[in-house]
């Protein structure tokens, strides 16, 4: 169970969240002009990387906000969470370790 830091509510257990797949996939606005293959790529094909993954989570049992998270699919390390529209979290070399003291929410 991952401890996930909701960008609004602070750190909560994973069971409060639902997973929303890869992040930063922009829905084509010109879909009518796309080939079946291009459209299929958008709908079905994901990077599924071994390693750093930018993904979406939904704070389903909390504030009901969607947000993004950078996580390593091999080491399990969560590198950070950020709100939609914010730039991708910079990923430092070291995985995140629960920090001394303050892992509370923003409030």
């Amino acid at each position, binding site marked *: 169970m991952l401890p996930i830091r909701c960008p609004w509510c602070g750190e*909560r257990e994973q069971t409060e969240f639902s997973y929303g797949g890869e992040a930063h996939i922009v829905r084509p606005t010109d879909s009518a002009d796309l080939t079946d293959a291009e459209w299929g790529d958008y709908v079905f094909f994901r990077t599924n990387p071994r390693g750093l993954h930018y993904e979406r989570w939904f704070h389903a049992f*909390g*504030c009901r906000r969607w947000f993004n998270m950078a996580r390593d699919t091999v080491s399990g390390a969560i590198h950070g969470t950020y709100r939609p529209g914010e730039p991708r979290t910079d990923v430092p070399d070291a995985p995140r370790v629960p920090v001394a003291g303050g892992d509370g*929410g*923003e409030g």
Partner: protein
Amino acid sequence: MAEQQAPITAPIRRGPLDGRAPVTADGVSLTLPAFAGKLVLRGGSDDGAFTAAAAKVLGAGLPLAPNTAARGPRGLALWLGPTEWMVHVDADTCDALAAELTAAFAGLHAAVVDVSDYYAVMRLGGPRARDVLAKGCPLDLHPDRFDVDHCAQTRFVASAILLHQVDVGPTYDIQVRWSFADFLWTYLADAMREFTSR
């Protein structure tokens, strides 16, 4: 066609937990607080016009800090999210307040939704309340982390709850959907069993 007929008796408003006797154990009790009207307010935390309008009607600012509640002259406002608050008010004044708020929000991107019946509230209090909650709620409720007028939307086992610490007792108000209320009540009462002598 308006062959209007008055009902024979005034309709009775019921909650899902009506008639439940309080459950008590050593150091913890489960009770029903008085029925409150409940309004969801929607608007941006960063929308000054909205927050000002809300503050004006409510007589106190909405709590803008996550996971906090603020009491004002017209009721208790609980932070639910960056664009969402729950306001608990006296049931009798709920409609009027909703109307006032709706009027105050005219022209703004904001909303007022009456959810008085959607949710039921139960109250768990006493020195052992934390131990009972820990049996299903993954939040850290240590007083250093969660104190009076902190609130959180979280879960108790499978139920989504809105937890609000009322006093240092500690006493918690736990708000849950109508259809989950009976289950949650039963679960909490069961969780208290350990603290009852036979």
